[in-house]
């Protein structure tokens, strides 16, 4: 299959690259190492600067991708080996088991209901998000199917109450399971899709070009940053995004983790952790955080105009079309923007409220501000799997950990290896519209290769 391309990463950039290339007439393999395509956008609530609902605009594209004959979606799949050959590439992929048969699972959810163990969700744990050991990534997931947490199968979840994992033999030895509740629930539905004995599969491909679209991540705060580890009511911007999402763990209610009460006073700290020692914070401006916070305050005000909102910031990055107007909308809605640098946070043990000490950059004075909920805008970091992937692909990362362009001024999106291109968050912190532009461009380059 020489006239095919491989796209690594199924976020909004990978999806758009795939749709463009497939409509152009090229066969596309779209690989993501998580259980569903969708990437960061699938977790977001609204999107700046229009406040379009994120999943409303992304899901139709995800379904389109699924329905395109020219696109083969491979989820839970990693790129293991890449060899340049005859002007193209030989690829070896490994498809990690979901322990569920992709052909048979219909996403009915019977197994999820049957699973006895709920654990804090990786993404939403601090704000009360929970998931079962067998679960769907999110309701609109593509492919629309569940996967089983390997920790359950390996027995690590026995103490938490998992129904399997304590057997004398490993699951891979059996061809049916008499004890797993998810297996039984699925049998009862007549599908037999849960297959605990599934193993990893090798997939080999031949392609003419590769597009890397592995995206970005929201930085996790260093534990001691402004009370993050100490206090329940200090959360990250990413967690706030989930909090206000009608599809998130609180069904869109903006409530405090400590007591589930609606937050009446909320503050955002921009550039949280910036300028601190290496490893403590993101050392560069991540470009999009000012607009993310502005979006969050506007939505908060839309939920309830009486909520008091404050944003502590340094330099306002309103760099894109209509971004300034978006900021003004927030100001008009009564949001306070204070040029200030918070450096210490203390909790009132009784009220669980937080007292923020900050330097007001306009007056030079030290001031304090009390809130119910504090949101840390910690910045954007490269996807942590980039380093491994760069090695496999034989391309370089820049000193910040994003993929390096060979010459951004004359040949943007090209890497040092001819035939390997970049788009979206793989190139640096970026918003959705710019990701889509790059996706179209990288798609053009990829299909144009002879």
């Amino acid at each position: 299959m020489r006239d095919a391309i491989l796209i690594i990463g199924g976020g909004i950039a990978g999806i758009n690259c795939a749709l463009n290339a497939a409509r152009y007439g090229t066969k596309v393999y779209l690989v993501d190492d998580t259980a569903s395509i969708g990437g960061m956008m699938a977790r977001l609530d609204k999107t700046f600067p229009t406040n379009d609902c994120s999943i409303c605009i992304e899901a139709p594209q995800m379904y389109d991708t699924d329905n395109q004959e020219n696109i083969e979606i491979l989820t839970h799949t990693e790129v293991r080996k890449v060899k340049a050959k005859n002007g193209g590439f030989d690829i070896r992929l490994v498809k990690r088991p979901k322990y569920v048969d992709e052909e048979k699972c219909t996403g009915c959810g019977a197994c999820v209901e049957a699973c006895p163990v709920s654990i804090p969700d990786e993404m939403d744990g601090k704000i009360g998000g929970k998931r079962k050991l067998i679960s769907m990534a999110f309701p609109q997931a593509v492919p629309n199917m569940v996967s089983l947490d390997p920790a359950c199968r390996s027995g690590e979840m026995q103490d938490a109450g998992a129904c399997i994992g304590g057997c004398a033999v490993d699951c891979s030895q059996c061809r049916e399971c008499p004890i797993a509740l998810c297996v039984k629930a699925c049998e009862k539905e007549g599908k037999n899709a849960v297959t605990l004995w599934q193993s990893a599969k090798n997939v080999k491909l031949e392609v003419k070009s590769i597009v890397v679209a592995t995206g970005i991540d929201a930085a996790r705060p260093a534990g001691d940053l402004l009370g993050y580890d100490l206090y329940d009511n200090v959360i990250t911007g990413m967690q706030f995004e989930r909090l206000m999402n009608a599809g998130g763990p609180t069904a869109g209610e903006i409530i405090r983790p400590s007591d589930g009460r609606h937050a009446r006073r909320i503050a955002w700290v921009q550039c949280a952790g910036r300028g601190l020692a290496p490893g403590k914070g993101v050392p560069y401006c991540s470009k999009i955080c000012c607009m993310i916070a502005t979006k969050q305050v506007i939505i908060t005000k839309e939920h309830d105009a009486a909520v008091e909102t404050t944003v502590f910031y340094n330099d306002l990055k309103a760099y894109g079309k209509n971004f300034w107007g978006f900021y003004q909308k927030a100001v008009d809605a009564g949001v306070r923007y204070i040029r200030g640098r918070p450096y210490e946070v203390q909790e009132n043990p009784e009220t669980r409220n937080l007292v923020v000490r900050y330097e007001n950059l306009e007056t030079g004075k030290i001031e304090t501000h009390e809130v119910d909920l504090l949101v840390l805008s910690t910045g954007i970091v490269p996807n942590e799997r980039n380093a491994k992937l760069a090695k496999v692909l034989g391309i370089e990362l820049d000193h910040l950990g994003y993929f390096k362009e060979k010459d951004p001024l004359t040949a943007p999106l090209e890497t040092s290896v001819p035939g390997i291109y970049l788009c979206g968050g793989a190139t640096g912190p970026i918003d959705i519209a710019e990701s889509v532009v790059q996706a179209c461009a990288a798609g053009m380059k990829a299909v144009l290769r002879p």
Partner: protein
Amino acid sequence: MNVPEVVEYARGLDHVTLADEGRWSCSVDYLSRMQALIREHRINRVVIASCTPRTHEGLFKRNIQQAGMNPYLLEFVSIREQVSWVHMREPEAATQKAKDLVRMGVAKAVLLEEGEEIRLPVKQDCLVIGAGAAGLSAALNVAGQGFQAIVLEKSDRLGGMLNTLSLVRHDSHHADAAQWVQSLAARVYETPGIRVITGAEIETIEGYIGNYTIGLKGGNGSPGERLHVSTIVVATGMREISPEGAFKHGENPRVMTQLELEKRIRSSKKFQPPEDREETNDLRSSGFHPEVKNVVFIQCVGSKNDTRGCCSIGCHAAVKNALALKALDPDIQIHILYRDLSMVKEEGEMLKEAKHLGIRFSRFPDDRYPEPVENLDGTLVVKTMDILIGKELQLPADLLVLTVAFQGDDTVEQLKGLLKVSANPDGFFQESHVKLAPLEFPADGVALAGCAKSPMMLKESIEAGIGAAMRVSIPMKRGYIEAEGIVADIDLTDCNQCGLCHKRCPYSAISVDADKNPRVIKALCKGCGLCAADCPRECITIVHFTDDQVLAQVDAALLEAPEKKIIGFVCHWCALGGVDMAGVSRLQYPVHARLIRVMCSARVSMKMMLRAFEKGAAGVLVAGCEFPTCHYISGNYAAESRVRRMKKKLARSGYDPERLINVWCSAADGPKFAKTMKDMVKQFNLDNAS
């Protein structure tokens, strides 16, 4: 709910030949059984009662097609998301609702007509308007596929803005702008398939994708030449907005804009541009009496105010030029006066370099811009307040550089009319969708690239140019564009040539002929139904969502106990997504609604709403995408205004206008949909009604 009972009920409905229960109707096994049944019983309409059309309609359409049927003869009824998952505690009422939904589905199905994808041929030729970095990148990529590209430039040379720049930078990468243009232009001239027309302007644009005719004025082509192309890339760039006398610009020769400074740096000895030697002055001898020793930059001139936002590139430009001046003369003292420094990611390195070289930065208050005062010898002193150190400063300036805002090209005003697209007050074109369609206009086959959309850096302009090439190349490569069979259809019998449909179509898919008769260019139609619902003479219908079909659903829903039922018209993209989300989340809400899917809330005509009231419905819901989202650009706005008008009409006709409810619901907002249902039931007192 009791599925066998629903199947039994379906079996007894008129026109139903066969009703079959499949446990997992989307499984491979059942799909082949369905094909066999269709063939065996020679079935000509299919109703699927299962999950949701948003995810599975495509699958079932393909399946009946494989069984030899026209795929448009399928109707989808959602009994999982709309019944079993949301009415778990009321099995009897749920079963009754499922029966109603199936009856509505059958009522529509018997009226379904065959549909087909509609194609319009597209040839392999593209006009690129504007020969800047974006336009040339687009042309090179179009031509790189063996297609024809015509580059049209109104000035006499290629390169656009780059012709006025000194050097371009992107973190540690430098390039000389003149050389950059030269090598790009050389590639353009070398590439077969590219024709360059300079010095020409566009006079007329007629037609649509696959079929554009462009009339030219002037230029090196043959006089009065008309170009015939299939697609267009608009890459007309931007220019500086003159400060119009502010900060002594135009009064004092030492005050200049960033681009005016670039020109001087460009012509100074150090850079030696290969062409363009008409300005040979270097910085020191460029008409300034003393040696230039002190330079002050003022940022955000004309930006970040009530009418205009951030200029997007000014911070980068200022730091870059400050570094260039330092390279010419390390002794120059430079002060950059700013409001917010917008230097992101790797640009932070440039900032560090600048600070290391002693370039000073000072922040002034948003509401108090620095003020230049003239000395007797013509030099300046800039008075400013540094809010970071809390001090008033007086900075000597032999040169004062203003970082001004940008606006679209002069020709945008004319072009936007010719292309039937819109632009903002600063002359930047409005893209089709801010997030997911940033490179195109609503009309198919016309792409938008580079600074014509908004100010951006060179790298971004090139990316946009290449991306725009992709957008127009898809139909050129395929040789056609294709529209789904859900399109508008006009019956001219009653048409009074009012032209409303032509004016209101967001996709320019309705043209009018010399006699003012409208005609749908089917391949361009997206099937939203705005025209059909608005047509005062009811001449327009939408295939697959005809008036008759929708009214038949309304009638079927209200066949029994209409006073307990709510008719809901929900748009496919968002509101139905919210309904599905309520289902997936197992939110429980009252059973009274009978939902009818339309592609866009704009399809819901007054006649449809009225019919529901005439048949005795307790209430009517029109639900569409939350503003500003709309799959069809602005259909929900049209729906909102129509509902407002409908309420007045209802009052006049003796119905209670409060029983018509309008809700905008995102596809993530299951809770909102469930709450709407609860509120309506409460408001209409339906639980207690006998």
